[in-house]
């Protein structure tokens, strides 16, 4: 029994592509579940703090990054779900989007990091001044950055003559799941922003 469990990762590694095809819709469903759960909770919570208005460049960077992540998610997931693997024009579009993401992520990090600092302390001890994001959006933001770092890093490392085939396979697997997390986090963040605008 124990040895069977131990062998599971090895078996999984040789079928990682197939496993990801199963994990992909589950991951997207999990994202939807998080949103739904948060929506239910916020109905019974107190009113959100006052909203700080966005500056135009903040909106531009936000929408741009969101669009890039959506494009990357679509080219990857649609190809995987429809064709089993990404290739051809799908892969080319994914590569182009990847370049844009590599450029957008540090800008997003530098521009938004401060307004996404999480409030640590007992409830009600937070700042009275207007804030830009809900807590769920802040968590999603840091998740986007962290997963974005992994998503970009794994592929850039793969472009160098450092790793052999098993290493490349590992990088691809990590890239896939980090990409899924990034897309889900972006969705949650979008929900957070939308909720904030609707509720204030």
């Amino acid at each position, binding site marked *: 029994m124990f040895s069977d469990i131990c062998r599971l990762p090895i078996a999984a590694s*040789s079928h990682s592509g197939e496993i990801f095809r199963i994990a992909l819709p589950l991951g997207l469903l999990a994202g939807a579940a998080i949103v739904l759960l948060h929506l239910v909770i916020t109905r019974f919570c107190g009113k959100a703090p006052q909203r700080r208005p966005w500056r135009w460049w903040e909106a531009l960077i936000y929408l741009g990054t969101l669009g890039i992540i959506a494009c990357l998610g679509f080219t990857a997931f649609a190809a995987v779900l429809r064709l089993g*693997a990404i*290739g*051809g*024009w799908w*892969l*080319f579009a994914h*590569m*182009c989007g990847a*370049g844009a993401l*590599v*450029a957008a*992520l*540090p800008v997003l*990090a*530098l521009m938004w*990091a401060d307004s996404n*600092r*999480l409030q*640590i*302390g007992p409830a009600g001890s937070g700042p009275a001044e207007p804030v830009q994001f809900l807590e769920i959006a802040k968590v999603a933001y*840091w998740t986007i*950055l*962290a997963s*974005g*770092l992994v998503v*970009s*890093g794994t592929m*850039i490392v*793969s*472009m*160098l*003559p*450092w*790793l*052999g*085939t098993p290493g*490349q*396979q590992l990088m*691809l697997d990590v890239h896939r799941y980090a990409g899924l997390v990034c897309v889900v986090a972006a969705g949650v963040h979008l929900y957070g922003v939308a909720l904030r605008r609707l509720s204030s």
Partner: protein
Amino acid sequence: MNWRLLAMAALLPWIGRAAWAATAETRFSQTFSRSGYVHWIELYDAKGDMIDPASPDAAPYSPVHTCGRCHDYEAIRHGYHFSTGQASGDSSRRGEPWVWTDDRTGTQIPLSARGWPGTYDPAGLGISEWDLVLKFGRHLAGGGPGEGPSAAAGSDQPAAAGDPPAAAAPKDPQAPAKAGEKAEAKTPAARWRLSGQLPIDCMICHSKDRSYSPEVWSDQIASQNFAWAPTAALGLGRVEGKVSALPDDFDAASADAKAKLPKTTYFPHRVSADKKVFFDVVRTPDDRACYYCHTTRFTGAEVAPQWTHDEDVHLRAGMTCSDCHRNGIEHQTVRGFEGETSPSGQPVHTLSCRGCHVDNDGGGRLGAPRAVHKGLPLVHFDRLACTACHSGPRPGAKPVQILTSMAHGLGLPAHHYGEKLPPAMVAPVYLQAGGALAPHRMVWPAFWGALKDGKISPLNPDKVYDALRRTLRVRRGSNFTEAVSEVKLTAADKAKALGQERAGVAENELTGDEKAKLEELTAAMAADAFRKKLNEALGELKKALPADGSEPVYVAGGRAYRAGADGAEAFDHGAAEPYAWRFAHDVRPARDATGAASCFECHADDSNYFAGVVTALGPAPDGQPPESTMRQLAGYDPTMHKAWNLSFQGRTAFKFFGFASLGVLALVLLAYGALAVMAIARFVRRL
């Protein structure tokens, strides 16, 4: 008491099976020792009678009855190498076909009975086993068509065991005619009766001491001494006389028949006192035996000399062909491609490149190193066969012409080996096969055929020759191409090309430009002459076709031709498409693999892997033969290729930019992570 009877009754089938199994195991002698058996053995003739080598009337030895006493000939004869020309059902992957060439009619037809798309079944073209053996016997290991017409009819029983090869043939067909026997009618069966069968000659592959002579084997077949070929080729004795010299109505019963039939004289030094002969047998054939039929040579002015080429990396590492291309007694030799299923039922995945060098389950056989492929994106493993980067020479701007043993008879001494020797084949051509790019060899079919209902069917080459020899008038020592494109420039022609003043100048005094102009004019006139001559021949061929609406056509060099008002007209047809088959050798080592030095070997607009131009070759003189880039032949989207190549231009810069970007991102995460840790620490302290 009853229960004992019942138990015995229940066990009877098992006992019977066990007894049968035991019988099956002991039917053929075996030693089961890795040392191998020392083959001092008696010789048996085609009738299964023991031969007295000292007898002046000694018959040639028969491998069927000599080797077959201890080895299962019936199982062996269905092996991959012995099913040539016969429907074997092996349509798994295309391989090199036999190419029927006839220099007199400009014919080169890829033949195979294996059902490979693009080849033609010899039987469908009226090419008999007799024809196949005479044409290709030089590189056949015997068996298959060599067993005569009965084998082709689908009989499970080996013709060598005593079935007549043809309806007219009496008694044992494998046995050659002996003096005193009545001659048969003037049919191929009558000639089979004289020649005997061409059995599988085990020693063509399993001879260890390299005394076996394929040249003698070939000569004996050319002389129609089929049954004598194994004896002569192994050097067991001398064979005098030729069946080919005997007329079809040769009367073996006549008084002087004995003197005219081939005679076997065994060399005394090969025979022991107890009338046994030593066969120096090796279980797994030597590479040289394989190379006799599987050599490929590059030819042409642009090809580097042979000594500059490297050997296959596996052979250099001490391996042999049969280390991967294995078989059991059933001789279903493993071809070694991915996804192959062996008729033996044994899994053979680990004998493929990927199975041995890449995959985890069972790879690494014979010390095969694990492929590292550092920095190679995984998508390459889906889009490329291993051979795309590791096999054959790197492509030039055009693929080079090749000669092969099977098509061009390499291995036999001759003076005519060169790029003009038909059939014209080229390599490497990169095509997609099963979604992956792989190197191929390619040949364009050339034949005379009948077009009916949109389908072109080749005609029997010999019948075509009979119908067209007066029209084509191909002289001895010449060939179809020369005969149909023969032109002589008149003074008026030269004046038209060079001007009146230079037209009379001697050829050696002409400038390079002038010579080029004359060559161009000659080529144009030759093409014109060809169209006219072809029109004439097609008109003649129409008389030989049945009046069922069939239209005579000629297919060559990637085009089909039909009769027209002012010379033959070319048109496109699927029958003119080239036949291509994948190859895997010679394998280049990792450091010499394509892409090992740079991604730009492939990912560049001018990469020969995609931009290389493949020009159709064939016996038809064609000033503008069909040309395609390898990208077109492989079916890739040129826009996408260009886009990818463009993306590679900034790849190095992107890597630097990517690392810088990741650095900033990581610093931000680290900085705010540190702030978070400090905030948590403060919060904890306040509690």
